[in-house]
């Protein structure tokens, strides 16, 4: 049997389960898998987190660097999110420069953080027009068991919560000394739903990710507002499906994530 044929069989199986309201791993449609967040594992990072969601594993690290501000925002720091989908995480990932999947992943996670205005970039100015902090968030996908968007967002937010600002004197960062924690305003979580046949479920497992026709990731902040969205996949959503996800299901599904993020100990 070709790989394509195997996936078609898997798809039929997953769909027939979903018709009965069941998922292969026993979850309900709007239920997340177990997840775990470890903070501060990497000592060279100003902040870090190691996240597992199902068997998906993400290492996130934050580095703070002093840079010249952009001319159109001389008083603001900046944030930059990058994601690496190296072959460590999956036999189907390739080494080399980031492909479009990794670029999309990084940019969607970035917008989920940026649009929710989580990092208080106004407070990251050292000398207006001269020196501001840039917050580099780097995500390393280590094991791909489905749903990288939500796992990477969790890891990025947790790493930011864990971040301290280095001491900066006479144009130099003092290695290992810090002046406080990174100023944050609230938080956001991302919840990804996928469509398989005409069923829609949150937090896709690896198999669900592989057989889905369409995907939608919705970022929600701590006030229950929408702050970023991204549809993916070559399938379509009906207007009703979209409304149901965006105005209802996402808020229910995100609850366990929001609870854990809210209670993370800040630095």
């Amino acid at each position, binding site marked *: 049997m070709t790989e*394509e044929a195997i996936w078609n069989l898997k798809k039929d199986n997953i769909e027939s389960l979903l018709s009965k309201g069941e998922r292969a791993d026993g979850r309900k449609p709007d239920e997340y898998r177990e997840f775990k967040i470890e903070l501060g594992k990497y000592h060279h990072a100003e902040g870090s987190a190691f996240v597992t969601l199902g068997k998906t594993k993400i290492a996130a690290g934050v580095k703070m660097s002093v840079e010249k501000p952009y001319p159109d925002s001389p008083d603001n720091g900046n944030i930059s999110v990058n994601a690496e989908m190296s072959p460590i995480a999956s036999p189907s990932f390739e080494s080399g420069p980031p492909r479009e*999947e990794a670029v999309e992943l990084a940019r969607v996670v970035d917008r989920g953080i940026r649009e929710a205005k989580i990092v208080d970039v106004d407070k990251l100015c050292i000398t207006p027009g001269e020196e501001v902090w840039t917050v580099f968030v780097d995500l390393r996908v280590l094991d791909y068991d489905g749903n990288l968007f939500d796992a990477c967002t969790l890891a990025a937010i947790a790493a930011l919560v864990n971040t301290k600002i280095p001491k900066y004197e006479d144009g130099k960062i003092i290695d290992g000394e810090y002046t406080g924690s990174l100023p944050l305003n609230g938080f956001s979580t991302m919840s990804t739903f996928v469509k398989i046949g005409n069923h829609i479920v949150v937090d896709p497992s690896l198999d669900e990710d592989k057989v889905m026709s369409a995907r939608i990731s919705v970022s929600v902040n701590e006030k229950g507002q*929408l*702050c970023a969205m991204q549809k993916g996949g070559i399938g379509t959503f*009906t*207007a009703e499906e979209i409304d149901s996800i965006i105005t209802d299901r996402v808020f229910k599904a995100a609850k366990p994530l929001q609870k854990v993020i809210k209670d993370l100990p800040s630095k």
Partner: protein
Amino acid sequence: MAGKGNENVTYVDKSGKRLDGRKVDELRPIKVDVGVLDRADGSAYVEWGHNKAIAAVYGPREVLPKHMANPYKAIMRVYYRMAPFSVPEHKRPAPGRREIEISKVLSEALDAAVLTERFPQSQIEVHIDILDADAGTRITALTAASAALADAGIPMRDLVAGVSVGKAGGRVIADLTKAEEDASDAVDIPMAILPSTKEVVLLQMDGILTKEEWKDAHELAHKAAEKVYNLQKEALRKRYESAEAVEETEEIAETKEEVVE
């Protein structure tokens, strides 16, 4: 999305007029021309407000390298590129991360419409050049690409209509300009819709929005898509008529050439 806009700007005045005089649900002027290029299998040029996009389609044709081919369907390859002079600051020619991401979402949106299963082992290429940019380039690109695919004779379930809705100055509005995207509460929601079935094939959002605002914006999007759809169909109809005329001429020309040979 939220920009650095002056808080004192009134984005929608008491009479419901926006900065450029449009109503909240009104689109900028849109012009769609089909069959504008000679060498491509299909092409279209779209002006949408200040945005200008040209799209060329090739295919279905052979996949190179061959091992990338899919035995069940054609693969869609979309290349969205910005001309260096299309934006306020000179852009480097190499594609940036934004162009790579947009190429991907456009590719998925078009793939949803094209009957790719009819062309296994082959690829369909869409090349789009943005020549002028003013908020809404990806939906301008998509509208051009979809018309160019139709011009190339690629079978589709429906045309893909690109639209953008969002928010500025506290009001839900359609088709934001760059000035509106600079509002401090700006939200931009590029979407693409198959108008016949109202299916959504592209959806992105940047900025903070409530559920209620989403509902208004979503409704606005479907109305706007209908308008774009009609413009696309009109342009294709015109092209079809003129193409018939051209084909007759070409037949005569070919007959002549045979004589010469």
